[in-house]
């Protein structure tokens, strides 16, 4: 375990120095922050207890699920930015800034996922877990509806020779509204779960 932690630390240090030499400062900073975020458990335990935490099966399972979420997010955002629609969002940004933002946000998704699986979900009631899934599904549907609506609006407007109103309203008002509701609902339930009464202490 110690060897793995040191290996990750040294690899991150070497890559960071290389990135600094190549003047890719944003990517270097995001890599450092991402590494700290990914190894937060080990760092926290080393600072507070001066020893590495045990890696039990819950940690392994939660880490796997959080890594999966981070990977799915990274793949999704990469695919989105490769679409003509997605390129509009990065048209005035440098490549290193976009890469840094992608790495940082992936680290954040990993961290939030891990905290959710490790700390929030076990303390949440079945009802709240179902509502959370509902809000997450609403967010996914809103993003999908936004992309499809923009595409259909452009196609219909292009071929019809007029400004198509229905998909425009869906893309500009309804889909962002759905995403906002999803974000607020998800974050609220997440914070409630995290702040719930701590598990029972010693007898």
């Amino acid at each position, binding site marked *: 375990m110690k060897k793995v932690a040191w290996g990750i630390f040294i690899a991150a240090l070497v890559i960071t120095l290389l990135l600094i030499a190549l003047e890719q400062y944003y990517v270097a900073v995001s890599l450092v922050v991402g590494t700290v975020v990914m190894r937060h458990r080990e760092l926290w335990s080393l600072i507070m207890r001066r020893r590495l935490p*045990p890696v039990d099966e*819950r*940690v392994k399972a939660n880490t796997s699920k959080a890594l999966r979420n981070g990977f799915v997010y990274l793949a999704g955002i990469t695919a989105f930015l490769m679409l003509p629609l997605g390129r509009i969002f990065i048209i005035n940004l440098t490549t290193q800034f976009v890469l840094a933002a992608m790495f940082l946000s992936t680290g954040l998704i990993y961290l939030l996922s891990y905290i959710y699986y490790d700390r929030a979900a076990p303390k949440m009631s079945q009802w709240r877990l179902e509502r959370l899934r509902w809000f997450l599904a609403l967010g996914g549907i809103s993003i999908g509806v936004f992309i499809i609506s923009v595409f259909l609006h452009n196609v219909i407007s292009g071929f019809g020779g007029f400004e198509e109103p229905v998909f425009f309203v869906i893309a500009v008002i309804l889909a962002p509204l759905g995403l906002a509701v999803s974000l607020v609902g998800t974050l609220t339930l997440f914070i409630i779960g995290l702040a719930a009464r701590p*598990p029972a202490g010693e007898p």
Partner: protein
Amino acid sequence: MKTRIREYRARHRLTQEKLADMVGVRRETIIYLEQGKYSPSLRLAHGVARALGASLDELFLFDD
């Protein structure tokens, strides 16, 4: 699933931290095991049972 880990741990006068150290897991894992909110692997269940001197049937109760 319900467990009697808390009861057996109290009999042996073990803290959650001590039991966690004995079976090589974090304290949180013991907490969620006691609350029946985590289904352990057979290896971990066996480790906990051995640490508490009980059988699996005595520690873990399933609703049939």
